């Protein structure tokens, strides 16, 4: 019988209860279960740094079992950045380990009086003194905890989380729960790390069938074109194409949309030169991770799992930085300080534009801060991680920083709901433009994954023209629900073009004897989407706070194949209205009673 674990750090109390079976059938696990548990225990009006803020760690339903690419675990809390739900899905082994400890989720609240760690060793849960780890980088923290506790899987924060950088991340095995500032939530609780060891058996309903399914999907994945691309070049494989053929690679804080100096940050250049092997999340043999090593030069000794596409943008193009070694070093520092590379890069790009425009001076910042200068990026990451100089302010994220700076800097503050945007210039990608606004956590590409739809024109059951508003509401709604299925099962979203939803009924039956249809799964997605919205509304969510950044609405793309593209206020409203209608929400985003009844959540 698997359980839910509740840890109250303030009272030093631990409670375990069997997981009600209806929670699994209605919410699966991972993201879905986390949202459900969060909603029942979190006071929506509390600040993200309030001790009673809840942090949920919830393994995907398939975690701990071999289902191809299903090693993803959900972290969820209230975001210090957006003030809405913060959810981040990570590929470190802690999800699998929790499942082997017999746990479906861990719900953490309260605050330790001193730096501490939580140790979960099968049934034994203890809160231990963590003062000796405080101040350490992520990797060193993991090593030290493993030295002290023995064989275990560790999720930890670095100095940025301790310093309450609002976009601090949580690290596990060099994979991050990156977005939304979950690391700062841990820091605010004086919780440096969570160590898990589990060696319980996970029973499989039909093991022979599962093994056959695993081998079947393995063969399909390994023989696909995507496999070859992922293995050779990682997630940035299409970077050059996206610049040349789509013209939507945000550059220099979104002043440009084609990065002319992209030669070095293109994986076709750097992968053969710096990558020594592939790195995989647990249970994934379709590895997009790369071990990137720098042997000589100013950044000699750099070793990082990356560089992923988003980071090639944020610490590369966004900062006009053409130097791949500086990108890799800044990436490693972000991981070590425990910061989201996307937000960190956009904050730095923002500061660089303010310097370019004379709104800020480099002396005020405390470091060089110039577009195109790799060394500036590296230094700025450290400044923010340590919260020194202007890093004190920039660690608050672009929205708060621009409010403090004033002087018209809000025009250059790229964010939606306080969260910095990912690597797609949405002026030329309307489905993504809408997705940034509807994402529960603020500007984000992974709630809908609609970038694939915009860029290729076809995805799943949809086809689209990326430059029109047509039908975007319905497509984004469906894609969001679809992605929640992945995040709840713990399956990597990069597998969606293999599995769609078709694969899951068989896999769920083989693993757990669970009988579901694709429609059941989509309904789970819709249920969870509505729960997220209910929480966000109660915590002060407004439609207006989710409007696109000014630059996206006012300044058309200046060059390349998407020249002239912009999302006007009118476009924005057309798409948002379409979305609300598709969701059966009113114009202000409030779900209709009938919808909640249909989803069985009217009492929540």
């Amino acid at each position: 019988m698997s359980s839910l674990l509740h840890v109250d750090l303030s009272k030093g109390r631990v409670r375990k209860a069997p997981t009600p079976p209806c929670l699994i059938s209605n919410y699966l696990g991972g993201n879905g279960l986390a949202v459900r548990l969060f909603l029942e225990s979190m006071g929506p009006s509390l600040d993200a740094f309030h001790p009673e803020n809840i942090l949920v760690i919830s393994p995907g339903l398939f975690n701990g079992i071999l289902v191809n690419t299903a090693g993803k675990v959900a972290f969820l809390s209230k975001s210090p950045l957006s003030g809405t739900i913060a959810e981040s899905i990570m590929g470190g082994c802690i999800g699998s380990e929790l499942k082997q400890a017999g746990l479906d989720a861990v719900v953490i609240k309260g605050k330790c009086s001193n730096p501490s760690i939580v140790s979960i060793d099968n049934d034994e849960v203890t809160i231990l003194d963590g003062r000796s780890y405080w101040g350490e980088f992520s990797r060193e923290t993991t090593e030290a905890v493993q030295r002290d506790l023995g064989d275990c899987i560790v999720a930890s924060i670095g100095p940025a989380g301790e310093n309450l950088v609002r976009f601090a991340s949580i690290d596990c095995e060099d994979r991050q729960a990156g977005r939304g500032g979950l690391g700062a939530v841990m820091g605010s609780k004086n919780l440096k790390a969570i160590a898990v060891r589990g060696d319980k058996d996970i029973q499989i309903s039909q093991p022979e069938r599962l093994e056959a399914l695993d081998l079947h999907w393995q063969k399909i994945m390994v023989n696909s074109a995507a496999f070859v691309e992922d293995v050779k070049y990682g997630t940035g494989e299409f970077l050059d194409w996206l610049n040349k053929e789509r013209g939507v690679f945000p550059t220099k804080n979104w002043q440009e949309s084609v990065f002319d100096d992209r030669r070095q940050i293109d994986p076709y250049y750097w992968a053969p030169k710096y990558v020594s092997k592939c790195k995989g999340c647990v249970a994934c043999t379709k590895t997009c991770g790369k071990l990137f090593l720098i042997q000589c030069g100013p950044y000699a000794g750099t070793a990082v799992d990356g560089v992923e596409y988003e980071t090639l943008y944020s610490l590369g193009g966004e900062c006009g930085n053409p130097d791949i070694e500086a990108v890799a070093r800044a990436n490693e520092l972000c991981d070590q300080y425990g910061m989201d590379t996307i937000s960190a890069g956009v904050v730095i790009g923002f500061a660089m534009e303010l310097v370019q425009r004379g709104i800020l001076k480099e002396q005020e910042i405390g470091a060089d801060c110039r577009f195109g200068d790799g060394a500036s990026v590296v230094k700025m990451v450290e400044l923010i991680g340590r919260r020194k100089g202007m890093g004190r302010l920039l660690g608050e994220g672009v929205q708060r920083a621009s409010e403090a700076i004033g002087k018209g800097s809000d025009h250059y503050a790229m964010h939606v709901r306080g969260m910095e945007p990912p690597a797609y210039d949405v002026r030329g990608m309307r489905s993504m433009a809408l997705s940034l606004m509807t994402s529960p956590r603020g500007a984000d590409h992974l709630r809908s994954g609609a970038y694939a739809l915009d860029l290729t024109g076809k995805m799943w059951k949809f086809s689209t023209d990326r430059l029109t508003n047509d039908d975007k509401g319905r497509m984004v709604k469906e894609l969001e629900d679809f992605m929640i299925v992945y995040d709840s099962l713990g399956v990597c979203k990069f597998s969606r073009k293999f599995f769609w939803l078709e694969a899951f009924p068989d896999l769920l039956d083989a693993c757990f004897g669970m009988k579901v249809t694709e429609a059941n799964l989509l309904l789970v997605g819709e249920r969870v989407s509505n729960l997220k919205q209910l929480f966000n509304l109660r915590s002060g969510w407004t439609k207006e706070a989710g409007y696109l950044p000014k630059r996206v609405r006012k300044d058309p793309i200046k060059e390349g194949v998407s020249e002239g593209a912009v999302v006007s206020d009118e476009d924005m409203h057309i798409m948002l209205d379409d979305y609300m209608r598709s969701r059966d929400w009113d114009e202000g985003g409030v779900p209709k009673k009938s919808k909640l009844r249909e989803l069985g959540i009217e009492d929540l």
Partner: protein
Amino acid sequence: MTKCIVPYPENCTGCRSCELICTLHHEKLSNRRKARIRIVKSGVKVDIPVVCSQCTACGDACCLNVCPEEAISLSGEAVIVNEERCTGCGACERSCPFGVIRVFGTAKKCDLCSGDPVCVKFCPYGAIRYEEPKPEQYQKVAEMLEALK
């Protein structure tokens, strides 16, 4: 010709799929800690597949020599455990320099899946290969493990 599982840590991605498929295949359940192959990780750089075959390759199987019940024997290419004879005393586990024979009730170790190892089938990176023994690869793994101590 003798074949065994040869580890190539320089290719290992650290994904642990081999551990998971091994337990599923042999134990009909999931528990990576019961796998007959294990991945030792350290930091971002080191992922080492550790699996029995070193001894069969060098011909000096400690576990086979120390077993008081004579429950461990060489069968074709693999050192295998006769689970009916095994009392679970743990002498083999203590003797194994690589920690790849472990006692869960009875001793469990790699039996090469009767000549078609499922872990090898599942690794597309060539981090574990079913081939002629390569002493230099075993040596490399031994040195990497030593360096972590």
